[in-house]
């Protein structure tokens, strides 16, 4: 029984409060979601303006066009930045997922010493202001450039993005492992499987949803990251966020709205994947019937 529904005997004040509350919530949800949704129709604007004109409101087909999408696709710099973004994000995701999952496995063992301290250190890249991380990594790369050229290289950006992505993997995988029944691995061992087999046949399938969610978080973190790229990358590693950043600092062209719409579609896809995984994971671990 929910507390939200109004009992039949509610008096006027209670009814008034109830509907005011619903109204407030609706406004907050509007505040959350409207800025994202407003961009989508505007990206199909036939005119180079950032607002709805009378024709658009009247749903006149002539007021809409895909010219900004064509513009986006026809520019080499945007096309290249897609590949750069994907390449860097995939590299950082693989590294962050591997390192983060291993660490989460260790952290969720009861024997792990100094757990709060180590956990605190591993999560800190998420907390430390990005500008400090970016500047620190920039100076560090600059100081070792004679031995290993990381400034202005793909590897440099990937390593930096891995640092930023690992906290998310650690958090999601430890969360999945918190409900993990350790007698299952013992059962596997008693049936004669060696630790590696137990890991891949028993543990991995159970924590896989958490690992994939963590990987998606790491992917988004890298795919959306601009500050480190500004400090560490050269023009060769131009990514989508950096290209957007440059466009927004000069003069916004509606092409950015087209890019933004594409990115929104990607986030919807990712969010849907994570939600499905989360429910599957909860079902597998018998936590809820969500």
């Amino acid at each position: 029984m929910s507390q939200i529904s109004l009992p039949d005997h509610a008096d006027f004040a209670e009814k008034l409060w109830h509907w005011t509350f619903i109204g407030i919530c609706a406004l907050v949800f509007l505040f959350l979601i409207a800025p994202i949704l407003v961009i989508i129709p505007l990206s199909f604007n036939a005119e180079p303006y950032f607002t709805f004109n009378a024709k658009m409101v009247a749903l006149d087909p002539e007021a809409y066009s895909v010219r900004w999408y064509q513009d986006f696709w026809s520019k080499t710099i945007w096309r290249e930045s897609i590949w750069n973004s994907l390449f860097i994000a995939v590299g950082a995701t693989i590294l962050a997922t591997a390192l983060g999952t291993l660490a989460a496995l260790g952290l969720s063992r009861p024997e792990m010493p100094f757990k709060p301290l180590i956990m605190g250190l591993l999560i800190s890249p998420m907390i430390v202001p990005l500008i400090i991380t970016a500047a620190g990594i920039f100076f560090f790369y600059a100081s070792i450039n004679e031995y290993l050229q990381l400034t202005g290289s793909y590897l440099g950006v990937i390593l930096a993005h891995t640092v930023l992505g690992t906290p998310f993997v650690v958090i999601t995988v430890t969360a999945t492992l918190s409900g993990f029944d350790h007698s299952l691995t013992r059962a596997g061992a008693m049936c004669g499987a060696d630790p590696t087999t137990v890991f891949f046949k028993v543990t991995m399938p159970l924590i896989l949803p958490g690992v994939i969610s963590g990987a998606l978080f790491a992917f988004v973190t890298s795919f959306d990251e601009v500050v480190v790229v500004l400090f560490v990358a050269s023009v060769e590693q131009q990514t989508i966020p950096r290209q957007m950043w440059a466009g927004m600092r000069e003069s916004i062209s509606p092409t950015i709205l087209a890019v933004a719409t594409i990115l929104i579609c990607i986030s919807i896809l990712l969010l849907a994947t994570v939600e499905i995984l989360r429910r599957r994971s909860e079902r597998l671990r018998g936590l809820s019937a969500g």
Partner: protein
Amino acid sequence: MASETATPTTADVLTTVDGRPLKVALAEAQRTRRIRAVLLVTPLLLFIFATFLFPIALMMFRSVDNPLIAQNLPKTIAVLEKSWNGKGVPGEEAFAALREDLMASRAAGQVGKVATRLNFETSGMRSAVTRTARKARKMKAPYKDQILKVHDAWSKREVWATIKRLAPTITAANYLAAVDRKYDADDNIVSQPEERQIYVTLFMKTLWMSTIVTVSCLLLGFPIAYLLASLPLRHSNLLMILVLLPFWTSLLVRTTSWIVLLQTQGVLNDIMVWIGIIDDENRIQLIFNAQGTVIAMTQILLPFMVLPLYSVMKTISPSYLRAAQSLGAHRFLAYYRIYLPNTMAGIGAGCLLVFILAIGYYITPALVGGQDGQMISNVIAFHMQKSLNWGLGAALGGILLVGVCMLYWLYNKLVGVDNLKLG
């Protein structure tokens, strides 16, 4: 055989099959397990140390590092330390040392840096240093008069005091500058001139803006977290998507949206003109100022408030409220006395997280902040990328980092990082 006879197998010492005392065997097994756990964490820990903690430590060192003068004017410093009492202009010995030092650093191509550094302390020193260095080679002893003839800045006592003061390779000067203080020529800490006092105000403004963002997030987040926690799971899951979608949407996309919505020719102003609240001529400047930064940051950070609130509210049983009401409390009193105290853990977690993330914000203020919406991160970026005053940038960053670490420690203490919720 040997082990069997060596171990006492009396009835009161339990042993394993191979005859070792159970206690020893257990401790050993525990140790192996602990080592295994540590080994799993080690790769990431090393990685974080090498590419995150060490670089930040390196940058923090930059905020106190001051090698330039010590490296380039070693002889001058030695003479000043030895035979100058800080009063009046030093004697011939110091001028001779200065000539040698400047010749050496000119050969090493460092004179420009020395000139810039001294000029930063006393204006006019750039030309004094470069000109003296250029003419030093042709001078003949005694040097004092010739050097004074090249540039009369060397006749000022403060210049020599400054060189002596800049001699230590570790300095607090950057931190002093970061809190609007500086050393005068005689090592006293004094306030910066009025027009250069900007950083304390900026720190205050950053804290103030972060506080407003945090409070706004709490005020907006509390009702919807409550709604989500009270609705049956089927409906709340659907509404939860509305909270999570912004969380997954690119920061740059959301910032772009706010520009589109709030700019003077933007959607919100258009709607207000259309409804008739404002005239077409008096459109409101909603963005490219502090207000725009706060609005955009509130929307961007709101999910970080809603998620911890929701997970705490979910655990509060509705029967508490019913019990309070059946004991005679009015609905509102019951909320205030029973429900609200129970949500404190969530309020604390959400507020701390939002505040921590807000004070280090860079992208949104840089794009929508205009002149007065800039925060401390933006000034750090300015010093790192534009003015190239890395020492000052690192010192500002150091102060910010200490603040964030203290809040993070508090968060860890109160909430625990392992309770961080990501949807």
